Structures are given as C-alpha cells and as structure tokens.
C-alpha cells in the first residue's frame, strides 16, 4: 500500500486511485511491485501540489480476510497509539 501525511495537519493518508483516503481499510492494495512503484511515482509527481508529504510504500498481508500491515509501525499509524486509545483513527470506531 502507499501512504503519506497530509501537509496541513499531518494526518495519515492512504492512496486510493488517483487520490487519498484517511483509513487503511479504504486504500488500494497493490498486488504486484510494478503497480506499487507506479503509484509511488505518481504520488511523487504530485508532491508539487503541496497537499501531502513523504509518500512511501509499505507491506501488508491478509489476516482473517482483513488487510493488516506487516510492521508494527504501520499498524500503529493506521489505528493510532496503543495508549490513549481515544485518539487516532481508532477513535472513529470506538
């Protein structure tokens, strides 16, 4: 998947199509490296719009039918901190 942070508030974004969404569950999953690289290249080209910063790819896997990041760092970015659980994106589902 492809992620970035929104410039104006730093919020975590996920790539969907040619745009961005706020939740990992709504983002695009790239099944092959070529698609992932193309999405990253497109995002890098859009940096001049000054809407988001620092795009990068990260790995996900399917667990019980759900898409889950491989690394703890991305799990936390997607949900919010594991303390103060009323904060972060997880708050919307609380």
């Amino acid at each position, binding site marked *: 998947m492809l992620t970035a*942070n929104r*410039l*104006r*508030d*730093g*919020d*975590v974004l996920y790539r969907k199509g040619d745009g961005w969404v706020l939740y990992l569950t709504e983002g695009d999953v790239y099944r092959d490296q070529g698609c992932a690289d193309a999405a990253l290249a497109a995002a890098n080209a859009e*940096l*001049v*719009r*000054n809407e988001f*910063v*620092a795009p990068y790819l990260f790995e996900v896997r399917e667990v019980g039918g759900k898409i889950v990041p*491989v*690394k*703890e*760092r991305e799990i*936390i*970015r997607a949900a*919010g*901190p*594991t*303390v*103060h659980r*009323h*904060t*972060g994106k997880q708050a919307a589902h609380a």
Partner: protein
Amino acid sequence: MLNTLIQPPQPNMYRYDEFDAQFVSDRVNQFAGQVARRLSGELTEDQFKPLRLMNGLYLQLHAYMLRIAVPYGTLSSKQMRKLAHLARTYDKGFGHFTTRTNLQFHWIKLVDVPAMLRELADVEMHCIQTSGNCVRNVTADQFAGATDEEIEDPRPLAEIIRQWSSLHPEFVFLARKFKIAVGATEKDRAALQWHDMAVQVVKNAEGRIGYLVMAGGGMGRTPYVAHVMNEFVEREDILAYLEAVLRVYNQDSRRDNIHKQRIKILINTIGPEEMRRRVAREFEELKRMGTLQLPKEELDRITAYFKAPDFETGLSDDMPDAGPDFANWVKTNIHKHKAPGYAIATITLKTPGQVPGDCSAAQMDAIADLMDQYSLGEVRVSHEQNLILPHVRKKDLPAIYARLKELDFASPNAGLITDIIACPGLDYCDLANARSIPIAQKIAKRFENLDRQHQIGELKIKISGCINACGHHHAGHIGILGVDKKGVEFYQLLLGGSGAEDSSIGAIMGPGFGEHEIADAVERVINVYLAERKAGERFLDTYRRIGMEKFKAAAYQEAAAA
C-alpha cells in the same frame, strides 16, 4: 477555580525584557510567514523542514509534534495554565513532559502552529532551541534555589548560557545538536555527565566560587560519560570557556558521517587531553581578545531575577502527621528545603498504569492552582519526567497530598522502580523502532505493590524506543532498549547504568526479549538482586559488586524454560 479568585503570585524567575519580547515576536512572525509559504507551495518540504525544526516542529507518525522549551525546567502557574489551554484547544487534551524538561504536544496541525506560537509568546515561552543542530534548551537541577545542598542557584548561569547561545551566529549550524546542563550540588540530579557539555558550580580551595566544566558525554548509538575539561573556570571567564569548547567542536567535528558528529565522538577520537589542549588554546585567544567576559553587573542583574523568595519565618520544621499513606509519600517524594518549615515536593507523573510524563489539561490547571496556593506560583520539570513544587510549607503538605490524590498524581514512588523514564516510542515517534510506554506501564503495574517497591529501594528503570536514547536507557540501573526485528518489537536489557554523580554506562545483557517477556525478565533480575544484596546496597551497588552473570543466567534461563 482558584485562578479566578486571587491574583497568581509572580515567581522569582527570568522575565522577558523588551529585547526578548521583540525577538520572540519577530521569530513567531517569521515562522508564520514560512508556514504560509509552505502551504502555498512557495517553499518545498526540503526547504521547509530545517525551518520547522528550528521552531520545534516535527512530523511524527500521526500528526505534527510541537516541542515547547521549558528553560532549566522552570514554569510559572500562568505558563502552566497556558499549556493546559493549548492542550485543550489545539491538541487532544494532554501534553507530555520530556527527558529534556520540555513539553510536547503530539496532535498538532501545521496550520495551527503560528497561533500556538503567538499564544506561547504571550506568556514568555517559545519553541526555539528544542530541535535542530543548535545548542538545545539548557537544563538544570530541578531542586535549584530550594535545596540546602547547593553552593548557589545554578539557574542564573543557565539563563546566561541560554541568552549567549540563542542567537550566537557561530553556533546556528552546528554539526549536530548540542545539549548543556548546569548543577550546583555534589549530588547530580541533572545527569550532567551525560551532556555534550555541563557546568557544575564549585568552590575552590580558597573558597571562591567558579565552574567545573565537562564535555563529551552523550547517549545515542555510542554512549560516553563526559570528561572534565577544566576543574575551575573563573566566573567572569565562563562564557569564554564554553565558547572555546563549542568553537573547537564546531571546527573539528566530523560532518561527513551523521553517527560521528557529536562532540563525544570528537573527544573520544582525539582524546580528552588533546581536547583540553585545543580548548585551552581557543580560550586563551578569546581571553586575549577580551570580548567575552561576563561582567559582575550582568551576572548580578540576571541573578536578581532568581532571588530567593521571602520565606516565612517561625514555621515549625516538624512534618505533619496525616496518616500512613501521607507518611509513605513523604518518605519518597519530599526533600529537604533550605528554609526551615519548608519542603520540596515531587509530583511523580508515574502512578502505575499512567503514561510516564503525560499530563492532561485538567491536571495542568489543577497543578497551576497548587503552585499558586502552595508553592509561590512555581513548578519545576525534571529530566525524570516529574514535576516539583519547589517551595512548600510543611504544614501545607497534607492538603497538597490530598489534592494530588484526587488528580491521581500522589504515587509515593519518586526514585523507586515504578518511577520509570520512558520516551514516547513507537506509539508516536517517527524514529522509534518499538513502543516504550506500554512496557513502562506493564512493569509499573507488575511492581505496583508499595511494600515491594520499598523493599527493592532506589531503582531507576529507563526505557527508549530506539537507539537515539531519549528514554536514557544507557543511564538506567536497568535500561531497556526497544529494537525492531523484521517489524516485530524486541527489548534489550542493560544493567548498571547511572545518570547521577556516579554515572556509568549500562552493559547490554544479550539478545532481546519479546514484548510479553520483558516484564518477566525484569522481575527475575530483581529477584537476583533481592537474593544477593548486602545490607544497604541499592540494585546498582549489587550489580557493580557481582557483575552481570547471575542476572543474565536468571533472565535467560527461565526465559528459555518458559
């Protein structure tokens, strides 16, 4: 509600003059312009990043993080209330006191930062020198001006160093960040020896007050304890001497390798003797020019801001009797004050289960009320992420304790195993490899029983979520370092570190433990200590006497069996 009823007392601390106010205001306007230019696209992210870092603004995992300077850890109640207001208005209702005695907000929007900086400037605060490759916020002994152990209050010197370094044209673009601490007692509460440079107020054989200067300490990837550069620098020469150290560092440090750019690497590469020689040469040159003397009048002028309050006389020096819980709190959290009838009260932000260093807006407001009512409007932030009411009448301690209990900040654990330092770690930090806070919470809950804590005695656990060591793991009696193994968190144990006057670097025990194993491993280490210790020995003393092996055998043997 107290703040609406009475005029808050004005603590004896530095107050902005016209120049300071203009400087901070100009800087706010400058950064507001830079933010606007970034949002409009006039500045690229690469151009903007060093500018935001010069104003304490980081981009972290979930949002921007704004780090606010608390010079030498001193805050007024007015400033505390402003921090509460900012937490409520721009963050998610809480802030985090750091090991550099600053305060961080972790949920900040870039578009809000100019307004926040303007609000901070209104109470003589800013975010300058809290990030970037500059001389960082100067820290000091949190008991400064209150303890009877000190030669003199070190904060005037800290303020002078702050003013000297803030706009110093030579040191705006150092190779790396540069941290300075000051102290004035033999007991080191400010981790002096772990700083790039540290100054200790001392008296020479003739009884004259001067300064001992150390340099080359630091944590991070390559930990070193500082070397003494000069055992006695005369008062009027101190800025020239500090400038000489910084000048040698600035000229001779490596800029080609980010891991070798700190002064500790320079000093330990060329050797402390050669460093002293180079510094002496620069110092002589600066002295010869005579442009950097510290006039007595200027020292006196700054010192006057920190004049000791007019303490009440005739107070009883007896500790009130307010029950066993209060007595336990007194045992660990109350320290001797220089004025009869007064005490220094430590509020540990570490009730087991809490996030070390976190404070909600409501708690900040309530502490501001306590400051006004009982501590002459003042609080200190310690590098151990606690708050200190520096000037409290002993007779008021029961009322303070009762209020702290309501705030869930009355844990009688200062200096004990649950008084854990922890960086924000992977829950917030972009650099972290592993979480620190949940590990601190887990260990604190494991050792929550107060009798057990007292049985264990003084024990400093310090947890970092990465090798940058913001959680001071190298200096922990028990240090914990979070590492990443293929995306999974592991935790290395270190034993034998100290951040006090007996500073030492903790030794790594061996391979890391899993997230669910680390609290058990710590407990097994503690059990070895309890079995092996001799009368009066702290954990650190026992470790230094018997070494690593027994601790290691217990930690891994039982981990393997589990």
